[in-house]
């Protein structure tokens, strides 16, 4: 069944426990495959390491930027309203009564940082994404229940339909699926 690369998203192999998936990911990485992804019904720390995600990525920096934006804009809003646009003497307090501005500054810091965390996570993950080729494999339905998958994508320079298939068959015989694009 030879298929051209443009019609095949990749080859997927199925496991029934997390240890086999992590071990397969390590072997594939050692074999030289890089464009691949593991799919599991819950987060597996070792799987990320096996696939080469060693850093926390860009998300923490985004959240920090969100927090700083919220902090600065929160204080600036209150300062501008109370000191510049409509200076109002309340109980003889100074116009820039900064201690009273802290609660709102703090709340907006948290709000912007949280929004950055959630939207950043979704954005970097490319979600929402209603269609993805992996859903074309009927067995993949179980990836959200109790099965574990590893998919080597045809984009990988080392991807060769026959050789890769043979390699994956060696990892979990009889559970290798072709993923249509």
């Amino acid at each position: 069944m030879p298929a051209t690369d443009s019609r095949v998203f990749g080859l997927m192999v199925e496991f029934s426990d997390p240890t086999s998936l992590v071990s397969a990911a390590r072997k594939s990485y050692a074999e030289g495959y890089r464009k691949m992804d593991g799919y599991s019904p819950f987060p597996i720390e070792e799987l990320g390491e096996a696939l080469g995600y060693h850093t926390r990525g860009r998300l923490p920096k985004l959240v920090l930027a969100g927090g700083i934006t919220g902090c600065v804009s929160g204080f600036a809003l209150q300062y501008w309203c109370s000191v510049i646009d409509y200076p109002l003497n309340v109980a003889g307090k100074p116009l820039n009564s900064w201690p009273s501005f802290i609660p709102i500054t703090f709340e907006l810091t948290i709000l912007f940082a949280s929004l950055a965390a959630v939207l950043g996570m979704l954005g970097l993950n490319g979600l929402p994404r209603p269609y993805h080729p992996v859903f074309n494999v009927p067995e993949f339905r179980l990836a959200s229940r109790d099965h574990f998958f590893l998919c080597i994508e045809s984009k990988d320079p080392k991807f060769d339909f026959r050789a890769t298939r043979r390699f994956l068959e060696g990892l979990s015989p009889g559970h290798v699926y072709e993923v249509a694009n």
Partner: protein
Amino acid sequence: MENDPRPPGAEEPFSPPIVAPGYTFATVSDKIGSIVLARGTRFGWVVGFALSFVFLMVLVVSISVLLLRGVGIWGINSPVFWGFDIINFVWWIGIGHAGTLISAILLLLRQTWRTSINRFAEAMTLFAVSCAGLFPLLHMGRPWFFYWMTPYPSTMGVWPNFRSPLVWDVFAVSTYAIVSALFWFVGLLPDLATLRDRSKNRAARIVYGMLAMGWRGSAAHWHRYEVASLLLAGLATPLVVSVHTVVSFDFTIGIIPGWHATIFPPYFVAGAIYAGFAMVLLIAIPLRAVYGLEDFITMQHLRNMAKVLLATSMIVCYGYVMEAFFSWYSGNPYEQFMIVNRMLGPYAWTYWMLLACNLVTPQLLWFGRVRDSIPALFGISLIVSLGMWLERFVIIVTSLSRDFLPSSWGMFYPTRWDFATFLGSIGLFLTLLFLFIRFLPMISIFEMRTILPQAEVDDHASH
């Protein structure tokens, strides 16, 4: 003990028995998922929902009458302008705090037992905050002008007074509502994918599919997901402390005797967690019995929550003792009168009932037999919820009714609309809760999978 879920040999203190043995990834998923995906609806659910809905309608009627006739239908009048509305606001927002504590603080502290209770506790937070948010809005008299409290460029050219704790409240409570909703949704995402893949009904598959946003459990996604969850937990932890602190500022910034106290922020936060854990128990006990979730919400969970209840009750009671001490030590006659008035004045019965509910009753939890008795825990939680409501009554009404000038003293008598609005808000809370347990998984499925022994990766075998 026959109902002890601990398997033999699992006695080490750091591996609490948090899920009964014998479960697999599939059975955990199916057991929790089937509650939502089952065809037909349980008779008990229909009865419970119908009852809650009746009370929700009471709320709708109360609000309609309020909008037609104004806040005069309530018992508030000079000098007690803060009545049930503010008591209910503080009570509800406090209840919400336990959900965030369980989902954020216990996550950071790596308390894995929180796993099976965090989802519905977070839902409880959201619904409690919705109920809380209603009351300040209704209290305004003209709720349709609520947006005047937000800084927007109006033609009048004026801005909110940012030095006022009431404006801080607007920001604190709305931030809390938004962040709780985000946290809850992020937690639901992988479970929505499970429901999408498991449901046989086309409509359910489309709705859950849209909500799941195409989640496919990719390792790269999980990696960012875990980072985002930890960061959100780290952000929600100071947030939850700040929200009740800001609520307590509504009082402490005022000069009314009994309000102007530095103990208020920590004392309010502890009280919030105390009331919230009582509500988590009140929800967890019927849920586990009705839906047969004793294997997930084990006796160990109930015992742990009972201990949190006991610990926070001690902090709250320390607050009561310090309030009395401060008023004596201050040497201020108004503060000294305040505490005597609480103990012996016209509302003294509420103060003694509050002590009976919040100080005396939780002491029963020192006994292991009480912590092991489900009816006792349910009863104590009910009493604690009442006690925390009374605490806010004592703080608000007793202080306002007797301030500095005897000529301005006056009593507060709640009307039937006060009670109707309060009961109605409980109806709103329960209605939302019933809808939640019918349409969304009440226990986090993917997190339950992670605490099963099979989820461990055997490092020797994988190399």
